[in-house]
């Protein structure tokens, strides 16, 4: 805490940030147990984060914020925008395109399982009446899932299909939380529709 005033400082990898007994290593820093020292591992600005008053460990955390913007990475709890690629009887797979407002740079796949589509009557969900390939879905990341895909959930009012094309190729208009209509043919298709904020 005594280093607060010189917190704004540029560092390069290998620079000593403090003693292990005084600071904890956060992002962009690492702790070397041999000589009890915290070093920087990135180029960027160093900053000290005071410890939360609840934790027993009263050491501040030292972080180095790099400049290169890495692509966003989905984490449990984040809201993602994904495109449905495949619909199966028990689950649908989707490619994650955005995490929050940021687009991803690499391909991440997600899976929406049957029990995660909606909050009620979860065993009666028909996947084919909830999603179609190509739909744009807003979903919540439940967990890191297995080796191949994140587990996603649409079991909330504001989650589900936000944009879909009808068989005629037009963008459909939501009718209710289970139906969307094609403006060209008037055909009604079944979806798990998201209630987008600002929409009646």
């Amino acid at each position, binding site marked *: 805490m005594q280093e607060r005033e010189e917190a704004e400082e540029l560092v390069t*990898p290998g620079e000593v940030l403090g003693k292990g007994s005084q600071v904890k290593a956060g992002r962009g820093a690492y702790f070397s147990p041999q000589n009890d020292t915290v070093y920087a591992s990135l*180029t960027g600005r160093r900053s000290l984060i005071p410890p939360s008053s609840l934790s027993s460990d009263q050491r501040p955390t030292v972080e180095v914020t790099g400049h*290169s913007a*890495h692509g966003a990475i989905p984490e449990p709890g984040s809201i993602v925008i994904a495109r449905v690629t495949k619909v199966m009887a028990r689950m649908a797979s989707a490619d994650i395109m955005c995490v929050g407002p940021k687009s991803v740079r690499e391909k991440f796949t997600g899976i929406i399982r049957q029990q995660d589509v909606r909050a009620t009557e979860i065993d009666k969900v028909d996947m084919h009446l909830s999603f179609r390939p190509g739909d744009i879905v807003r979903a919540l990341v439940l967990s890191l899932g297995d080796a191949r895909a994140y587990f996603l959930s649409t079991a909330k009012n504001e989650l589900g299909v936000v944009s879909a094309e009808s068989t005629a190729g037009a963008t459909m208009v939501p009718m209710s939380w289970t139906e969307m209509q094609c403006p060209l043919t008037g055909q009604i298709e079944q979806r798990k529709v998201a209630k987008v904020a600002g929409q009646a």
Partner: protein
Amino acid sequence: MEFVSPEGLRLDGRRPMEMRQIRGEIGAVAKADGSAFFEMGNTKVIAAVYGPREVENRSQQISDQALVRCEYTMANFSTGDRVRKPKGDRRSTEISLVIRQTMEACILTHLMPRSQIDIFVQVLQADGGTRSACINAATLALADAGIPMRDLVTSCSAGYLNSTPLLDLNYVEDSAGGPDVTVGILPKLDKVTLLQMDAKLPMDIFENVMQLAIEGCKAIANYIRELLLENTKQLEYRRGP
């Protein structure tokens, strides 16, 4: 042949303890995640880093750390005599391995399990000390890519000709057949990560030559550090408040 004149000057006019002019540039390849250009006298190399990204070949995936790969290539026009070498000859493979091991030792690979980092170094012009120049360029490129590292790694070579320790050999001095010591260090942690020598040297002279090379590494480290800080400031300035 006389490599140091009676006045104490080398063939290219340097003093024995003098390094060639070094110059680095960050961001030479637009598409790469990190890249750098590094020049030591007439030796010019470009390094590009791709990753961390998903492992291409699943069988190579390591579950608790990142896979680091390196490829060293020489341009056809990089040497004095134009020779069209097939890719992947023994020398290139050996240098690729040296660079990979040196860089892997300083990257915090355990933070990026099941991912892959590719380091590509391309020699545009070779005039001795390509190994060192490649390592210095790779360090800059890795730092530019924002890959967490224990410390910067810098490298420099030194030799011993006409009973004089010489810093940073050029091609003519390198091919004279004398001992050539290439050292790579972690400057802040003060550790040697790479040490190569051919030919033989008495123990006490070796110590001197190695110490000289380490001094060279430290000078390069200072330059690289300044370059990185300057680059970060520039980026911050461009990004605005």
